[in-house]
């Protein structure tokens, strides 16, 4: 009898695992999630579905809002302000725009690329984003409706970090104020469900990364040779 009970218990456990698998398919069952990397643990289609519903899995939110410690490399190199992929490094009008695209699975806290003083924190588009309806529909036409631009003055010139979010997210927090002295690698803000961070550097700066490279905020050196104009 004991053997029979043991067999039934084992069969029930296996059946439960299969039922969970079937209930969650095509997304991973909670039983195997822990063994999957974030990108596979929460597939993009699932996250987009949550975005539409406005409900997210707690474990995903914990991962999304995680803010791990980072150790800045020694030296004076310019650090990546965000986690993500370098998608562009164009020079326009004497400014090099290093564009870093964040994915849903990247850490969303931004860090200062250099030590210096915050000259100003500009907000762009926030005022229009509070209302829904007509204005909202109009703004959908714009590619970058919500931005915060932090200008940092260093001994060797100015550097700017632009935090850009999407119309679906519409929230950016900045944790530094005008006139504040900040350290290289210090946390400067967070994009909530946002998309892009642009680092604006003098054109003469030597880039250490290329398009397609993966960078980590406050940890990856992206440029060096920041010199006063």
């Amino acid at each position, binding site marked *: *009898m004991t053997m*029979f009970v043991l*067999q039934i218990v084992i069969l029930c456990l*296996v059946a439960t695992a*299969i039922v969970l698998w079937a209930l969650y398919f095509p997304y*991973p*069952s909670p039983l*195997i999630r822990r063994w999957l990397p974030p990108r*596979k643990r929460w597939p993009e289609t699932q996250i987009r579905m949550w975005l539409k519903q406005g409900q997210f899995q707690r474990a995903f939110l914990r991962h999304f809002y995680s803010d791990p410690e980072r150790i800045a490399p020694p030296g004076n190199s310019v650090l990546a302000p965000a986690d993500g992929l370098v998608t562009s490094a164009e020079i326009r009008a004497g400014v090099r725009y290093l564009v870093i695209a964040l994915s849903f699975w990247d850490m969303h806290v931004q860090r200062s690329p250099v030590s210096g003083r915050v000259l100003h924190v500009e907000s762009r588009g926030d005022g229009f984003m509070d209302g829904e309806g007509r204005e909202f529909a109009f703004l959908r036409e714009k590619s970058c409706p919500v931005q915060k631009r932090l200008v940092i003055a260093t001994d060797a010139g100015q550097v700017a970090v632009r935090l850009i979010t999407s119309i679906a997210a519409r929230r950016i927090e900045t944790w530094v104020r005008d006139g504040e002295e900040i350290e290289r690698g210090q946390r400067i803000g967070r994009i909530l469900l946002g998309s892009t961070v642009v680092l604006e550097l003098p054109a003469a700066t030597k880039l250490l990364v290329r398009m397609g490279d993966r960078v980590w905020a406050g940890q990856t050196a992206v440029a060096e040779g920041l010199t006063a104009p």
Partner: protein
Amino acid sequence: MNSFFWTCGYLGWGIFSLAVFTGLWLLLTDLFWRLQSIRISRLLVTMATGWIIGVGLILLDFYIGNR
């Protein structure tokens, strides 16, 4: 062959092993599919082959044990 399904008050080890193996193999296939970038046809052929071998071994073991 009756002992395959039922033996002295509990499930026969044959059917029990088959059920557990099949369930775990299905879950393993799912995990493997998620972790590896592999074509679905190739994955299905690989895992089906593994399942056939596993079932074959269970049946063989049962046959040898009951000879």
